[in-house]
């Protein structure tokens, strides 16, 4: 499908978009940003880690039961890179980022560590968090219609975000207005001076999301969290917004955490992918590594369940039965065990996230076969198999059942 890389733009002679993952030029400094300390990156590369999360756990109590939303999550995000956190509903992906931002209700118990540069986010007071939010750490939500105040003009909302950090940027009202228009230009909103005075309902979904991004950028954040930011958008609008995010990432050297359930999105845009299930990371690798060599049975199931443009119509998709686990009654051992094809007795002991292959972490005692063995490599060079899907590997994932 489209293997010749021809696109509509090609056909009309318009410039072809760049392919391949975006790489932030090293040493890029942006006025107003603070340098982060160098941290040891786990891949043998020397990039600064702006955010380091270690063993994050979040629990709520509800009617006497404890809901374990996040159970020991660890990852790193580097400047200028995009980490995609993929999971279905109930995986804890959104809860974990809200824990970082301090947006959970006070009765949520957050333990573990999340270091943004030198600052420890877990256990921070609300007052300190407010100074940080929007400043070093910003978030864009899913539904722009609900995240924007319908009774306030767009410009006023951006100015509000800028003025909230006035002690940092020292801007007065006029300066803030000018900066707001600058930001609207940065996010490529057409006719920014006019839109400044408009209300949210006068803008389309894509434009509103751009405004949300502008608000998020108001404080020059080091890390931007996009929580299902494009889920509610059309696919053409999504492409526009993602391109904008990538461009901003390159220009501003920002780190982006993209939360989604869409593996395709992760494959196209992210440098690293982390797959979550039942509050834990179950697979974590660089994008190319992960998709060319999927090990975790859950990730395989996810990939297999996605309809693809090249499969035959009316064919049955490989499905797994069962449901996501009840987070207040997590089973002993591996949470995916009841639904896993490869499950065996020793799965009663919870697997840990280990680096089983260089640069590829997963938590499984019986993962799918690796493609990186010499024999597999040889076989691979003979065919054009590139991605780890059941159709290609003959992995029997069919275990029909009820939803």
């Amino acid at each position, binding site marked *: 499908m489209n293997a010749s890389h*021809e696109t509509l733009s090609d056909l009309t002679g318009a410039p072809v978009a760049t392919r391949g*993952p975006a790489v932030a030029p090293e040493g890029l400094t942006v006025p107003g940003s603070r340098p982060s300390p160098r941290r040891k990156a786990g891949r043998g590369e020397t990039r600064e880690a702006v955010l380091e999360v270690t063993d994050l756990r979040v629990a709520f109590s509800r009617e006497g039961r404890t809901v374990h939303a996040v159970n020991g999550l660890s990852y790193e995000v580097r400047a200028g890179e995009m980490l995609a956190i993929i999971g279905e509903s109930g995986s804890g992906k959104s809860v974990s980022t809200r824990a970082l931002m301090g947006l959970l209700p006070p009765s949520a118990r957050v333990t573990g560590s999340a270091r943004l540069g030198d600052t420890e986010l877990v256990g921070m007071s609300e007052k300190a968090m407010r100074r940080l939010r929007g400043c070093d750490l910003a978030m864009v939500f899913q539904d722009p219609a609900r995240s924007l105040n319908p009774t306030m003009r767009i410009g006023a909302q951006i100015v509000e975000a800028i003025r909230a950090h006035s002690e940092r940027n020292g801007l007065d009202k006029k300066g803030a207005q000018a900066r707001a228009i600058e930001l609207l230009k940065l996010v490529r909103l057409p006719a920014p001076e006019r839109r400044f005075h408009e209300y949210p309902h006068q803008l389309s979904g894509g434009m509103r999301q751009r405004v949300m991004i502008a608000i998020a950028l108001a404080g020059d954040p080091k890390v931007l969290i996009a929580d299902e930011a494009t889920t509610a958008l059309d696919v053409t609008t999504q492409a526009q917004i993602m391109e904008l995010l990538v461009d901003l990432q390159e220009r501003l050297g920002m780190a982006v955490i993209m939360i989604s359930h869409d593996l*395709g*999105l992760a494959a196209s845009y992210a440098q690293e992918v982390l797959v979550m299930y039942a509050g834990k990371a179950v697979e974590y690798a660089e994008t190319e590594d992960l998709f060319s060599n999927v090990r975790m049975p859950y990730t395989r199931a996810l990939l297999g369940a996605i309809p693809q443009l090249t499969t035959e119509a*009316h064919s049955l998709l490989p499905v797994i039965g069962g449901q996501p686990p009840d987070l207040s009654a997590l089973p002993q051992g591996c949470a995916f065990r009841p639904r896993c094809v490869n499950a065996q007795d020793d799965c009663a002991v919870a697997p840990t996230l280990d680096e089983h292959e260089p640069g590829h972490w997963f938590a499984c005692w019986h993962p799918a076969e690796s493609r990186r063995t010499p024999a597999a490599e040889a076989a691979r060079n003979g065919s054009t198999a590139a*991605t780890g899907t059941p159709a290609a590997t003959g992995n029997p994932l069919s275990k029909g059942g009820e939803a």
Partner: protein
Amino acid sequence: MSVVEQEKTGAHAAATTEPLLSVRNLVQEFVSRGVGGVKTGVVHAVSNVSFDLMPGETLGIVGETGSGKSTLARSIIQAPRAKSGEVVFRGQDLMTLSHHGLKKARHDMQMVYQDPFGSLNPRWRVEDVVAEPLLAQGGLSRDARRERVHELLNLVGLDPATYCRRRPLELSGGQAQRVAIARAIALNPALIICDEAISSLDVLIQAQVLNLFEKLRSELGLSYLFIAHDLATVKQVSDRVAVMHLGQLAEVGPAEQLYLTPRHPYTRALLDSIPGLDPETGAARRPVPLAGEPPSPLDPPSGCRFRTRCPRAQEKCAVEEPLLTDHGNGHHVACHFPLEDLSATIPGPREGTVGLAAGAE
């Protein structure tokens, strides 16, 4: 030969088979009102849409927000009635039927909605939900009804003993949608309209429900009108696909052909916008975004409605509205400057392996 006649004698349908559903020149408009009820404009939700659906066929309708695909579905079931046009279902024009006649006709046509919980009354039990159409039709004793309900629940993969007495809030999204499907097939309809029926479900559950649709299709001989915004999902279940843009049909054709060799620039743009991996190289395939904002249905562009975003637009596109023309094999395109046949440069689906093509939610 007109489009309609060509369809009827097309290669994919026996010449003697009548279409199950025949839509002609369907128009639906909504008046948009401002403060105080003053009319501020007209939303051209569906503009002059015509197509046929053969028995046993699945027609996928793809479009983005504002394309009018959901409005099209509702106009077909006459809720509310369209402004003008013809909807001939099993030989009867639904637009001309009385309230009573419509009720009868609707037994054969059912709908599955996007929100599985919204389509079930939260206070009813599952068995009551599934029995409702049986009760409305009448003619069955209570025991016969109960038996049929059990049969239907088994068909959709829900164990009657476990699920009969449950209420919707005790179900997961996938289970609730299965109940909705059980209700939809209760009266043995000929046609089921799926209006974004799986968009609200989790990825793994979507796959299960898609498989259920396929299973029911082969077991019960159902025809589907499958409406969605995700191109890959639509292709999975459809024989033919129609692409809608701002209330009009941009392109209709056999699924394989349409996806492999799209003729309309909009279809091409949609396909190009899907993120995923390149099946050949395994490298990330960056979608090329379509420039510009989608026009408003309140004020659609003159002539071709896609021209404001189309890189191939010429003067003619602003002046003359393109009509659906046949490009062979049942592939119709509404464009003055359709894309040329590119099949020579793109490998067929069996070569190379699959890539990721999950669309946006």
